[in-house]
Each structure stands twice: as C-alpha cells, then as structure tokens.
C-alpha cells in the first residue's frame, strides 16, 4: 500500500482558501486587451521574416528550386535550401529516445510527405518572403504516394502510444465469443485529424554571441531547450525558450517541430533575428496529426446482457520514417468489465508526416468506436444504453485487475442522466421529434482518461516583506496555468493570491516537464505544493527554534501558515508574521524546491483514472440528414478541482472536440497523391459557435488520496472521450442509421 499522503497530517501545514475557488483568470486582462504576448507578437530590432516552401508531392526528390527567381524578388535576403543550410551538431534523423521525433530540417533533397519543408525564404518583409517562397516553383522526381489504411505492408508495431504493448489480453476472448448469447462485430473508421490550434506554430529566434533566445509556443520548455541544444551543439544554459502563452497546443506543441527549428537555422544563416510563422496550410504535415484508424470491435454477452468477451482491434498508420501508433484499442483496458478482453494493434506506413499526440491520443479515437459498439451491443440485448453500461460496470480495472484509486463513475451516470432527462428517451430509434418535426436523438458515452503524473520541479520563496514568489516553468495553453498554479502556490505558502508572484513560461525556471497527458496541474501543482511546504517548514524552523519568537518550542505541535502568519497549531492565538520571522533572522528571503513524479508504489497498486458520463441530444433533419448537437450534459469525476471556472471551460472544450470528432473534422486525403485537400479552416470544419448551443458540465465530488498530494486527476482531455460516442449514438437514436465512418456526414444518413 502506498502512503496516504493527505491523511498523514504533516507537522507543518499550510491552510489556504485559494484552491477550489472559481477565480477568474489572472491573465484575463492581458488576454482581453490584446496585450498577452504570443510568440509571433515578439519584436526584435532588425527582424527578418522567413516563410517555408513545402513539398506538393508525397514522395520523391526535389530536383530543382528556382532560387534565383526567389532571390531576385525585391526584399528577399536569402533562400535556405539543403545546399546552404547551416550545419547541425546532430542528425535530424537520429532517434535516441522515444520522445525524439525525426525532423525535416533540409538535410537532403528527399521528400517523404506532402507539405514537408523543402526550403526557407528569408526577407525584409513578410510579403516578400511569402512571394519568394512561391517563386521557388519546385520541380520533383515523383514516386507513387502510399496513402490510406489499405496501403500494403501491415505489421504489428512493437509498442503503441508511449511504450504501451500493442497487444494485451486477459481471459479467452474467442471462447467468450463462441459461447455467448448475443454478439456484435462492427468496424469503425476515424479519419486523420489535425490539431489546428488557432495559433499557428511560430518562432522568433535571436542569436547574441553564443546565446540563443527563442520565443515559440511550447508545451515542454525544457525538452525544447534540450532539443535545440542537441541540434545546435550548444550548452542548454545558453538557450532561453520563452512561451508565456500558447495559442492552443493540443499536443502539437509538445515537441519543438521542424519548422520552428528552421526558424532558428534561418537566424543562424542570416546572422539576424528571424520570425517564422507557419501558414495555416503548412500545418498539415510537419507539426503532427491524429492518425486515421480502422477499428474492429467484437463483443459478446450472456443472456442477461453481461459482457463475456470484448476484442478491440485497431489498424492505424504512421509515417514511413518514424513511429507513432495511435493506441486506440487501449481504451478497452479500463472501461467495461468482461471476463475476457483483448486489445490489439496493427499498422501500415504511409507517406504522411509523423502522427503525434492529439488531445486524448488513443482515448478519443478508441472511445468513439468502443462507445458506439457498446451501444450496438446494448441494442442487440434490447437494453437501455445506460442500464447496459451499469450492468457491465467495472468495479476493478478489468485488464489489470487492480482496484481503482477512486472511481465515482456511478455517481456521474446518475447525476448526468438525471440532469439530462435520460429517462425520457425512447428505447427504439427514430421515435422522437420536436415541435418542428426534426428527429431527436439521445445518446450517451462513458468518458475516461488516465490520471497521470510526469515530472516537474518548482521553487518557492518567501521574501522579507512577507510576500512569496513561486517559480515553475509551466505552460499556459488555455487551461489556466497562470491562475490555477498561483492558487496552489498561494495555498502552499499560506498567502493570499495577491501576495504571491507566480513565474512561469520560461526555460530558465525550474523544469515543469510537459503540459500534456492532462497531467500538468497534477504534476507541476504537486511540485509547487511541495516547494511551498518545504519553504514553510524552513520558515517554521526559524521561528520555533528561536526563543524570541512566540512560536518558540512549537516544533512538535507544529504550525499552520495562514494569511502570511505562522500560527501554533495547538494554540492559534500564538502567531507571527512571515516578515517578522525573516526580519529577526536577518534574512532577505528563504527558498526551497519541490519536485513531483509518478509514485511507483501508488501506480503499482492502483488503476488511476478520471471518469465521466456524457449525454447528448442531437437533432437531425429527417429529409436532409443535417445534424446539430443541440445539448450536451457531462458529469465528470476527476478528483479535486482547483478552479471550477477553469475546469468548466476545459470540460466544455473537450466536449466540443467530441462533437467535432463525431460530426465535423476530417482531413480529406486524396489517396492518389497522399495530399490533404482541405488544408485550411474553411473546408476542414471545426464547430462554430452555432454548432454547440447548450453545454453543461457537472463535476462530481471525488476524493482520491492516491493519485498525488493534491488529489488532482486532470480534466484537459477527458471531455472529448465519451462525448464523441454520445453524439454518434444520439445520431443513431435519432435516425435509426448507424454510421460507422466518422465524421458522420449527411450523405451517410440519407444516401
């Protein structure tokens, strides 16, 4: 059994009231006045503009670039091609760890996917650089493109996602299927999707002597710094990466991408500061995407609707030159109880950029298929989808057999269903209409996402004036890092939030790891919490060991930090301000560090996941098949909520991604050329405001003593899981038509 951290009262506790409060964003004013600095807003004297030229073929060689024409264009300063690209200290194709992705940095004339950077044009103005790139008019030696999941050469990857086994099972699935009363087998397809953060990847790179400063959006500052150091053969200390605000990341800014590094190379080539901002169409290749999948689900139940077997098989695609395999089947490890479960993955290699983590990688993709299949199974059993899910509720994690560290999913089902009005649902499809005659459908899905911990560090300082400073190189990509971490920091120091300065978003602060896996608040939050605890302990020692302090001798009883004072725990009337303690000690400030990482004991003993239940209402025009997701209610149990306002926004965002997954987004890949034909925001649809008229997110109380000190599970990705399936199931319920090829388009409903 792991330690029960929250139950063991440490000798010195901090007492705060910041966590749990729905504070508005501390960076709100910056964001609503246009003053929040994003990378492309950075100004440096003498800045040049760089624009990529990208390949229009999927495979082959660049045989000619009209560099002369580009250079002749007024304002063009230089053209960077494989011939003059500055040398790198490390091969961009080297891969020494699974978190290192191969990059296209003009290392040769090969083209291995559409929209691969093949040159960079650098000019005095953006207009000149843009036209210079067009004037390069590349010629190619073209080889046939390999595109689509039917490409030859299927194989079983060694691992999927981040080192997960490609195959896993418990029990005998084939026997379960053979002996069952009811069976469902269905195949679902999900398309390639692109992160499409509103902020295109951008970099402003600036060398000063042997120092490099880059402004670039990053979900992993220290990793970006390390990658740059490796490639440029520099001491990481001489590289400063600044990313106070990301205009969205969703995984695409987890690793510094090739185009960003090309911006640095352009600065090196020209000896001038360079700004490189991707055009939207350039984001459909070198900065990652969610891989397409074809998922086959085989399910079977006994006569009572209890699952007897569940096989989730995924065929996905990676690039020809690197490995990322969408772990879509893994969702089946945790969700539903079954005596026999098997998950498996196969893959093909296609001429595309390397796929990457995209908001709920694997979970989102797998969830829409599994939740659809579960609905199909419920239907086969003649059962209400909620009743069916409750019947197959997993009391322990089905695949591993581990107990859950906490799991308030039943309560999510109950509260969500009640709030939504699930009981009014007809069992049979195509029964419900609104006053205008539109078909109405109700659908549901179970949401789940692992409660992960990575690694993070933080530093906490108490200053002589009694205020605090907390530093951690965390990342705000919209989840509200500036606010939530300040809340944790304030509580950890027993200070009002206005009394602390929170510093983040730079690589010269303590390494906060990565903002991903919905683990940033949990991990960096824990590090901050521990740093605060440590500095409070240090402060307490100064007081309790000094006979002049009213707290003298309180060492064993302990003290409580509150509102800038330490109080004796057994006699709160005896207290002293932070300032007085430091003053007496003659110290300007004291500081301590904190670190957080996975607790292997807890991770070994428990299955740790956030859960939720999403209920969706859709309306479908009976004649046209046009669909609108008119109402979504999600109930989520995700441990402790640091800031309900921010959490609501995160959950809504995820739920909208679920709507988008089910109904809107897909890259239209022309299989003849491997090219995405809708590389923009006009034709690559994501929901607009009118697509999501009513959302509601309930957070269900959940106390989890195992996940981390704070009891936080993370809410960044769970919203998309469950929601996508709920919408898909609602479309079926509205129409009676089961579409298994996502997104659900109107032609599939009426065709």
């Amino acid at each position, binding site marked *: 059994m792991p330690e029960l951290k929250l139950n063991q009262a440490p000798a010195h506790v901090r007492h705060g009231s910041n966590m749990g409060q729905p504070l508005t964003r501390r960076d709100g004013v910056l964001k609503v006045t246009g003053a929040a600095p994003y990378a492309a807003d950075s100004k440096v004297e003498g800045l040049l503009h760089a624009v990529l030229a990208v390949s229009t073929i999927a495979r082959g060689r660049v045989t000619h670039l009209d560099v002369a024409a580009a250079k002749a264009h007024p304002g063009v300063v230089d053209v960077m091609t494989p011939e003059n690209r500055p040398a790198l200290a490390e091969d961009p194709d080297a891969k020494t760890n699974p978190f290192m992705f191969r990059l296209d940095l003009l290392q040769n004339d090969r083209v291995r996917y559409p929209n691969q950077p093949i040159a960079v044009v650098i000019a005095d103005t953006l207009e000149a650089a*843009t036209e210079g790139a067009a004037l390069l008019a590349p010629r190619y030696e073209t080889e046939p493109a390999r595109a689509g999941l039917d490409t030859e050469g299927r194989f079983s990857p060694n691992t999927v996602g981040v080192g997960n086994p490609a195959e896993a099972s418990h029990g005998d699935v084939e026997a379960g299927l053979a002996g069952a009363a009811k069976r469902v087998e269905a195949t679902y397809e999900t398309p390639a999707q692109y992160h499409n953060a509103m902020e295109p990847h951008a970099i402003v790179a600036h060398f000063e002597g042997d120092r490099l400063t880059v402004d670039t959006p990053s979900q992993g500052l220290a990793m970006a710094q390390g990658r740059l150091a490796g490639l440029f053969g520099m001491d990481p200390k001489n590289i400063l990466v600044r990313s106070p605000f990301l205009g969205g990341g969703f995984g695409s800014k987890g690793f510094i991408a090739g185009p960003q590094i090309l911006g640095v190379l352009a600065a090196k080539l020209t000896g001038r500061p360079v700004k490189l901002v991707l055009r939207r169409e350039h984001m459909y290749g070198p900065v990652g995407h969610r891989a397409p999948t074809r998922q086959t689900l085989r399910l079977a139940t006994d006569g009572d609707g209890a699952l007897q077997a569940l096989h989730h098989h995924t065929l996905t695609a990676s690039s020809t030159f690197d490995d990322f395999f969408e772990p879509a089947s893994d969702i089946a490890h945790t969700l539903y109880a079954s005596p026999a479960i098997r998950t498996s993955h196969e893959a093909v290699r296609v001429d595309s950029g390397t796929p990457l983590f995209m908001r709920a990688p694997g979970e989102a993709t797998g969830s829409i298929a599994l939740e659809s299949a579960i609905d199909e199974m419920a239907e086969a059993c003649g059962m209400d989808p909620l009743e069916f899910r409750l019947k197959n509720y997993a009391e322990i994690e089905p695949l591993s057999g581990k107990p859950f560290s906490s799991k308030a999913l039943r309560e999510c089902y109950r509260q969500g269903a009640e709030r939504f009005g699930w009981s009014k649902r007809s069992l049979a499809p195509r029964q419900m209409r609104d006053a205008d005659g*539109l078909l109405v459908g109700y659908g549901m899905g179970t949401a789940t996402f692992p409660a992960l911990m990575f690694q993070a560090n933080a530093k906490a300082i108490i200053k002589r004036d009694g205020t605090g400073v907390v530093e951690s190189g965390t990342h705000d990509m919209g989840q509200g890092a500036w606010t939530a971490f300040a809340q944790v920091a304030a509580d950890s120091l027993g200070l009002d939030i206005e009394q602390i300065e929170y510093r983040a978003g730079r690589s010269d602060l303590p390494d906060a790891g990565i903002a991903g896996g919905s683990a940033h608040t949990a991990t960096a939050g824990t590090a901050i919490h521990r740093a605060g605890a440590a500095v409070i302990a240090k402060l307490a020692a100064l007081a309790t060991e000094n006979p002049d302090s009213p707290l003298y001798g309180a060492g064993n009883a302990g003290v409580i930090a509150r509102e800038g004072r330490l109080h004796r725990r057994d006699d709160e009337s005896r207290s002293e301000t932070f300032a007085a303690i430091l003053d007496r000690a003659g110290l300007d400030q004291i500081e301590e560090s904190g670190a957080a990482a996975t607790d292997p004991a807890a991770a070994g003993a428990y299955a740790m996941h956030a859960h939720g239940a999403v209920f969706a209402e859709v309306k479908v025009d*009976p004649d046209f098949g046009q669909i*609108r997701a008119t109402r979504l209610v999600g109930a989520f149990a995700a441990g402790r909520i640091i800031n309900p306002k921010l959490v609501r926004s995160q959950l809504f965002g995820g739920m909208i991604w679920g709507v988008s997954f089910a109904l809107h987004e897909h890259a239209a890949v022309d299989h003849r050329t491997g*090219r995405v*034909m809708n590389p923009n925001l006009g034709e690559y649809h994501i929901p607009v405001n*009118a697509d999501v008229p009513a959302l509601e997110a309930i957070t269900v109380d959940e106390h989890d003593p195992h996940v981390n000190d704070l009891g936080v599970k993370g809410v960044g990705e769970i919203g998309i899981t469950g929601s996508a399936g709920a919408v898909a199931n609602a479309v079926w319920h509205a129409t009676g038509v089961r579409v298994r090829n996502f997104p659900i388009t109107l032609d599939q409903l009426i065709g």
Partner: protein
Amino acid sequence: MNRFEYLRPATAADAVAAAAQPGAAYLAAGTNLLDLMKGGIARPDTLVDITRLPGLDTVETLPDGSTRIGALVRNARLAHDAGFARRYPAVAEALLSGASPQLRNAATAGGNLLQRTRCTYFYDTASACNKRQPGSGCDALHGDNRLHAVLGWSERCIATHPSDFCVPLAALDAVVETHGPAGPREIPLEAFHLLPGDAPERETVLQPGELILAVRLPPQAAEFAAHSRYLKVRERTSYAFAVASAAAALRMEGDRVAEARIALGGVALKPWRAREAEALLAGQKPDAALFRRAADAALADARPSAPANAFKIELARRIVARALTLAAAGTPNRIPALPASPFAHQTGGAHHA
C-alpha cells in the same frame, strides 16, 4: 502574393479602360480575390480598385418599381436594408446564410456574383484544373468530389458555383447591368454565368474590363414577397458553403399558386433555375405531392458527376420540396435566427418525413 500595380480610378470609364488591359483585375472588397491571390490561384499584374467609384453603393427603387442594387453595396447592408428585406426576403435570407458576419460586412454585390468556385483542386495549384489552367485536366473528376456538381457539368469540369445570393436572384429574374469597353449592356442573371462545356475557364459572359454596375430586380420580383424562402443545407450550422440549396418564391392567388419561382444552388456551375418545375406549379393548389413532383422536375436532368455526389440529387429534390413548403407557409416576419437553416424554428410545423 505577386507584386502588382495598384490603381484607384476616379470614374467608371477610367476603371474600364484600366481593367481591359491583359492581367488586370477589379478589386472590390477583395474577400475572394485576395484569398485567391494568397493561394497563388490568381496572379493579376494590376488591381483596379473600384471601391471609391461614385454611385455604385446605393440601393434604389426605380420609377417602374424595380430595385437597383449598386455593385458596391455590401452584402450585410443589403440584407439588413429593411425595405429591401421586406420586398425580397429570400434574397436577404440567402445573403445572411452566406459566409460570416465579418465577410458579409465587406463583400460586395458585384464581387459575390463573380466569386469563383470552391472546388478544392481549383484552389490547389499543384492539382490539374482546366478552369485554372486550361487543358491541364480535372483532378476532381476522380478525386474528392463528394460535393461536386450534379447538373450542367462536363467532363472538363464538375465544379459548382458557391454563391447563395445568386440563387434567389436567378429565381427572381434579376438583371446585371454592366459597362464594358463596348459600352453599357444588360445581362439576365440566368445567362450571366456559363456552364463549363469545353471551356471551364470562361466563367461568365463578361468581356475583359467589363464592370458590373448594378444588379436589378424587376418590379414583378416583389410580388413574391409574402411567400419566399431560401433553404441551405450545410455540414456545419453556420459559416459553411451549401452542400445544396434552393430558393422558392410563390405568388399566390387565393389558395392557388399563380406563379412559382425556383432556383437551386450548389448543384451546378451556375445558379440553376428550374423553369419546368415552376410551370408545373402554376395554377395548382399547393400540397406535398405537387411539391414533390415539382422537385422531381427540377432535378429531371440531374446526373452525378461521380458516385460520391449521387446523394446530392435526392437531397436537392428534398430541398426544393421543403423550400416550396416553407414558401407556401408564408414568409416569416423576421428572418430566422439561423437564416436558411433547417434548424431555423419553423412556424406551422411544415416538416414531413
């Protein structure tokens, strides 16, 4: 975007002279032209900015009762012109279903007529496209063509015209007033856009340099005001082009249709007037069966340009039938919150399965 010479002529005559030169193009708001220039699809040498030309930005009622929309009248201004919207509600509804509020604030009437297809292969300069580069082929023919044409297409080009505005204009017999090197002329909107045939690069009957001055709606067009709708099926609730659309306008006499007007959008390389369907309705008592027959007639010549877009034929029939049903039920007092959308709340429960 290539470098170009920028001219801002003071008179229409100067503009026509400048724009008649090879490589010149008119610039109105630029919401289509600049987009095409940024994509390298259009590379004009000279932009002739017409936004300051006098007299082109008004909506006037002429003595004969017709309405003249200046070529520079912004889409939003026209749609929100109360008098105009009352007389031509389907036109206003079509305008408000197009693009976004920001784009409609900029986009001009003339520019809307001349906006070019949204065929993704046309937009992609690495693809073969007869329209963009005559004789190069048509990559859409065997490509991603789910939303391509089902009427009036040729093997040379299967694209559609994306305008919403033009659809009710075609139904209502609008006339385009132009001024070209050869002087002024008038062109019925129905004859303004060209079907692809063998020369998809020829998109309209305009001669080089010919300037649109106005679009005119004849006096009869207002007689349909009480029974006019535009209906647009989309793959997103708003800010999306039509998969297919229809304008339907009825002039009722008692409980009978005296005269009907029907046009379709998103199905062909021009707004598609359905005269046979209109004829079928004249003098009849409206009911669902009649509307369905009219819809069948409207799509009688339809043929998928690829298997993937076959669904659009039946979809378009249903849209026509529904648009007629909605028109028969009467023009709503106010344009619905979701203009032209199937999700606009309908009065009278006109839906049928």
